[in-house]
């Protein structure tokens, strides 16, 4: 392999990992929601999209991109919290009804987004300092992608610390492993569910803000990102944070190399392994048994 080839591979790997960083933000929330509540949240893509739209509104009114990131994520977290408390909680544990309810909300959010922000393809412009290229070892790497990897790493470390080192994290892990037993030892699983659903919405919206500069923000993005997020969750293992990180990198790389090497079957190469993994090992490659 000549230097050009090496460079091609390095750039593809970098692109894959930075896309994976974005997918980690979306997938980790979905994975936690599934792990704790056993809910397939089909409005997760809508959280992602709404996060991007709310960020745009914040940027338009305040002019601050840095303010838009936490604000948009918090707004969507509150939305998720209300949705969980008012609608999902009373529904009990019936996976089909839960799935359909989250779809109903996805449609409502879709329409609301269309009414408020219109049907155009919008862009979130990050500060100029982040859009420059960085030269590392003769490779021109877009600074924004490096930023994406950085923020996903920071969020990942924070989540990991919360999950592994705090009492709340221990309670969450107990709920993932065995909810009835967790209730038995006095853990308020209902409150844990509420917290996790809001956290998942927060992470998805964060992904929307960060990813908005990269993918654009447009109607239909919600249902495009959703199945990819599910691929992350399935490959990584549902309810596991480390799994979501591994799954995100695997999917990010697979997506990039798939599109570069065999574009005609690139989505097939993403979803076929997902189906196979589910058939052979439903807990995912990195999930707990």
């Amino acid at each position: 392999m000549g230097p050009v080839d090496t460079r091609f591979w390095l750039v593809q790997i970098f692109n894959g990992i930075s896309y994976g960083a974005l997918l980690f933000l979306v997938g980790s929330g979905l994975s936690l929601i599934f792990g704790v509540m056993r809910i397939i949240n089909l409005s997760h893509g809508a959280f992602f999209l709404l996060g991007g739209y709310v960020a745009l509104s914040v940027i338009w009114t305040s002019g601050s991109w840095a303010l838009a990131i936490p604000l948009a994520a918090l707004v969507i977290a509150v939305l998720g919290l209300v949705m969980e408390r008012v609608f999902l909680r009373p529904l009990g544990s019936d996976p089909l009804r839960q799935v359909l309810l989250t779809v109903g909300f996805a449609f409502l959010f879709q329409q609301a987004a269309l009414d408020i922000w219109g049907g155009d393809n919008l862009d979130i412009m990050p500060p100029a300092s982040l859009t420059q290229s960085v030269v590392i070892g003769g490779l021109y790497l877009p600074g924004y992608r490096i930023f994406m990897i950085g923020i996903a790493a920071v969020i990942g470390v924070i989540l990991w610390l919360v999950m592994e080192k705090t009492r709340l994290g221990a309670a969450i892990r107990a709920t993932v492993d065995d909810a009835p037993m967790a209730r038995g030892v006095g853990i308020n699983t209902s409150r844990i569910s509420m917290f996790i659903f809001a956290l998942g919405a927060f992470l998805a919206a964060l992904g929307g803000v960060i990813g908005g500069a990269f993918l654009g923000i447009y109607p239909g993005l919600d249902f495009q990102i959703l199945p990819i997020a599910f691929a992350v969750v399935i490959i990584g293992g549902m309810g596991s944070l480390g799994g979501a990180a591994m799954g995100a990198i695997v999917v990010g790389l697979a997506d990039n190399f798939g599109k570069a090497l065999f574009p005609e079957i690139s989505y097939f190469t993403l979803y076929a392994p997902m189906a196979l993994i589910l058939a052979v090992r439903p807990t995912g490659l990195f999930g707990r048994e």
Partner: protein
Amino acid sequence: MSSRSKSIVVIGVLLAVGLIAPHTNAFGVLLITRAMVLAVLAMSLDLLLGFTGLPSLGQAAYLGIGAYLTAILATKYSFGLGWSFWLVVVLGTSIGAATAAIFGLLAIRATGVYFLMITLALGQCVWGLAYRWNSVTGGDNGINLPGRPEFGIRLADDVTYFYVVFCFFVASLAMLYVLVQSPFGRSLEGIREREVRMRILGYNTWLHKYIAFIIAGAFGGLAGVLWAHANGHVSPEDLVLTTSVDALLMVVLGGSGTLMGGAIGAGVVVFLREYLSTLVPWWQYALGGVYILVILYLPGGLMSIPVRIRQWRTGGRLPMRKPLRWRRI
């Protein structure tokens, strides 16, 4: 209601639709045709969801495969535009069944949420091929069909095509009805209620579910052939995740485990999605709102309304068909 008076009502409704539909305007005929095609898809899903307890999130894949087969045969080989249309119907049904036979090997072992996920993944595989495999599927643009078949009668006429689809719909309904009334159908219901018990009684529940999955795929493929000619166009949009979700909603909206419920649900969803959307800009609120209200307050679907009303009027508790039961996962 006795099953006899029920069938009289169903036949009456079908006759009414068959007689009235052609007298609506051109758009109306097209919409009713489309609703009937999707009704076949919804009923195929109801066999899985309502009768076997398998919630598939990938039923649109079979519709897509049947539709793309029809379109590719018609454009690349000019096949299926005359009498060979009937051959395409057979081929489309077979390819739906064959795909389901492959997918079923992977999916059938899974239950509950995992079944939802694996069928979602399989559906996305097919969508991915349709979307990206440009040389065969035309990618994002899809394929335009050269026109509807002609064999003595011209299906190009929308009303004629409506009657063809109507006949396929009635035939599918009748076949599925006979199927679910048969001992095989009864054992599927047994699996839905309690699979372990059926296994202990000596039934090969895996094989029962597998066969049901293949039959559902076959009807899905049939719906695909009709869908391609109804629209004159196929595209990856036909088999995106939302189409599969719509199919699920049609079944639950109408009432799962009733067959006709799926057809009614298909009518409601097509009305909201394609008719209401031409009238008002806020149609998606109606769509989302209907879903949420039905899920929250009418778990038995629209078909359970008469029972509900009687229950309310007598003030007492009438034996009511239980809504779908789900084993905890």
